[in-house]
């Protein structure tokens, strides 16, 4: 079975919400839609106080290169255009909408019929991805129209669909594969056409045998879609590692996947692509897992973007258990701890993961015993223990020379450290310092 070669760890999988079918989360009374839900500059609001909006109407327009359109997830009246603190406490421009009814744009096809034919040309597909505000839903929220617009002189040879879902707890991609395999395959075919590549490879970790079997069967009806079972090893779904596992190619330091002829897309994104291209539906919903060992029930939801964490928690489990210690957006390895439960969800949110007080605490830190476990676990072949020392002593120049910027922040080093040293935190700090240093030199 294929896998990436270097490093990696095996965290407890905890896919306890695997069997929870996707439910539809009802819409709240008020929605806050952030204008910055993607990698890059915030979108520019194109609505004003008092405007009536419909579901799927453009409310934030991408006016710079690295940006994505934002659409209204609800129908109603714009209350104000202001700012709002996101889940991590950072203030961002936002449009507040008072929800009235559920009136959709007429252009959106809401019938359950599956539309298979796509007659658009590659350029038109990319333009439509931009129009519909599609971003990568694997975590980075990279605007899709930039990714699928292959720069001059470069050629895509492989389209790789990331369905590894190597993060513990997360099951949204798994549920999409089980419930919407055909739509995903249509989405993949559309992306394949946009790139002009002969084959698309779906990488799925072997701990999801049902998804592998189901996708393999559905993919048989499509040309050039190959399901590739992968060994269970974290971070199998990290972009460079996945490319290495599926194609054997290695993306060099500081380069992009396209430099080795690869484009990687998340499985959830392919479903969004299907809906955008075939159904004219902009990216206004997330598929999101609500999970945690101590929760009374496990869920997977379709949630309108802008629904707050508290609304999701109230609807799914009533309230947080008394013993809750941490709420994480994302998985336990790379997810971010939520600061503000009143914050709206944004594009790419994949989970509300509730951790118990006891499991959310870090162990006591002790001296590094130079065991080298961090080095052996590092999928990039770096020396986390060394970065820790260099960053603590402010030796930013040396940290850069030891390629600290190659770090993908997968967390394997801290995960495996017997001395409980917060290596990943220190490396993040070091990377920020290196970037600041490089910016200052320019």
């Amino acid at each position: 079975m294929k896998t990436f070669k270097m490093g990696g760890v095996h965290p407890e999988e905890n896919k306890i919400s695997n069997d929870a079918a996707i439910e539809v989360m009802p819409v709240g009374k008020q929605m806050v839609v952030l204008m910055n839900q993607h990698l890059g500059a915030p979108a520019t609001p194109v609505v004003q106080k008092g405007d009536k909006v419909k579901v799927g109407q453009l409310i934030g327009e991408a006016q710079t290169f690295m940006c994505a359109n934002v659409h209204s997830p609800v129908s109603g009246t714009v209350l104000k255009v202001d700012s709002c603190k996101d889940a991590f406490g950072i203030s961002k421009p936002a449009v507040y909408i008072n929800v009235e009814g559920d009136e959709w744009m007429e252009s959106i096809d809401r019938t359950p019929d599956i539309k298979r034919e796509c007659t658009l040309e590659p350029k038109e597909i990319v333009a439509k991805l931009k129009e519909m505000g599609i971003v990568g839903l694997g975590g980075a929220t990279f605007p899709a129209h930039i990714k699928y617009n292959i720069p001059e002189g470069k050629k895509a040879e492989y389209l790789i669909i990331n369905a590894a879902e190597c993060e513990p707890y997360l099951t949204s991609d798994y549920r999409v594969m089980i419930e919407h395999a055909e739509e995903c395959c249509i989405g993949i075919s559309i992306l394949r056409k946009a790139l002009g590549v002969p084959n698309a490879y779906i990488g799925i970790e072997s701990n999801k045998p049902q998804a592998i079997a189901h996708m393999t069967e559905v993919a048989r009806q499509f040309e050039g879609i190959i399901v590739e079972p992968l060994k269970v090893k974290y971070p199998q779904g990290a972009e460079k590692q996945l490319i290495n596992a599926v194609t054997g190619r290695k993306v060099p330091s500081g380069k992009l996947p396209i430099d080795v002829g690869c484009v990687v897309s998340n499985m959830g994104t392919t479903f969004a692509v299907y809906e955008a291209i075939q159904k004219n539906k902009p990216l206004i919903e997330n598929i999101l897992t609500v999970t945690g060992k101590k929760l009374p029930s496990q869920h997977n939801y379709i949630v309108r973007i802008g629904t707050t964490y508290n609304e999701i928690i109230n609807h799914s489990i009533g309230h947080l258990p008394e013993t809750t210690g941490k709420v994480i957006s994302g998985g336990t390895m790379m997810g971010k701890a939520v600061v503000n439960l009143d914050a709206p969800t944004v594009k790419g949110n994949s989970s509300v993961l509730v951790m118990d007080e006891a499991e959310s605490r870090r162990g006591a830190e002790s001296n590094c015993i130079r065991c080298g476990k961090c080095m052996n676990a590092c999928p990039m072949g770096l020396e986390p223990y060394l970065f820790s020392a260099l960053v603590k002593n402010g030796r930013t120049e040396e940290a850069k020379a030891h390629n600290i910027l190659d770090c993908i922040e997968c967390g394997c080093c801290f995960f495996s450290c017997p001395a409980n040293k917060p290596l990943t935190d220190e490396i993040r700090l070091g990377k920020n310092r290196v970037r600041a240093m490089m910016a200052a030199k320019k």
Partner: protein
Amino acid sequence: MNILNISGSPHVHSDESTKKIMWRVNMALIPALLVAIAYFGLPALLVSIVSVLSCMLFQWLIEKFIMKVPSTICDGSAVVTGLLLAFNVPATADMLWIVVIGALVAIGIGKMSFGGLGKNPFNPALVGRVFLLISFPVQMTTWPVVDGFFPTNFDLATGATPLGAFKEGALPADITLWDAFLGHIGGSMGEVSAIAILLGAAFLLWKKVITWHIPVAFIGTAFLFSGILWLVDPSAYMDPVMTILTGGIMLGACFMATDMVTSPMAKSGQLLFGFGCGLLTIIIRNWGAYPEGVSFAILIMNSITPLINRWCKPKRFAV
């Protein structure tokens, strides 16, 4: 209303800890300890107990009264040092007080003076051992005779180690490779039985506490180098199989050179480290003043470990 904890990712941990690693090493030392007790009797047990307890006591005292930090004696590292120190001395009654001095040097100078576990450049047990070897040369080279399992007359006779005898002239004729493999030879109490040490090393490999690189490079280099010498002149040099089975090579290669704190981190660095240890051991044995060179070889290589860490980097992704 819950108050939420905030931290960077990852939010889970592998459950691996320094304490678990150290106690695994202690478990791996049990076979060699049992063999030592079986061959050398009560003194072996007493020396081990005194050594371990004094290492723990000194660490506790230093942490409480000098460093004023929370005690770490439960992490098992003082026990490792104590056991390894005991394994490196002869099992005689004299050692009961000498080993206390060794423990003070090992823990006090070898480890705590640098800031405790993880900060020490040299293997603490070897620091203690070499200090004792230089300070108490007679007691440290007075070996009890091994005359079968569970001896009762252990105060009476003293004998020589195979290496000592060879340095004086020739190996005693009655020592076979089989004796050396099982441990039926004279020597420091923990290093006599190759099979007991290899059993412990296998456990450490299985539990991924150590990797094969240092032991294989160390023993392999010693074997090849001594083999070449032996081929050149079999009368002047010991045969390579006997070379690696006697003295401290097995214990040193499996338990002391592999000490994570004082050995290189990258695999390539570990091979280089093991190679240096093997080479220096054979050089000291054949051309040095002492019949045995494992302790010195490892300490010398410890001293250049930071340099090796600088030279030998892990293989980076896509380079």
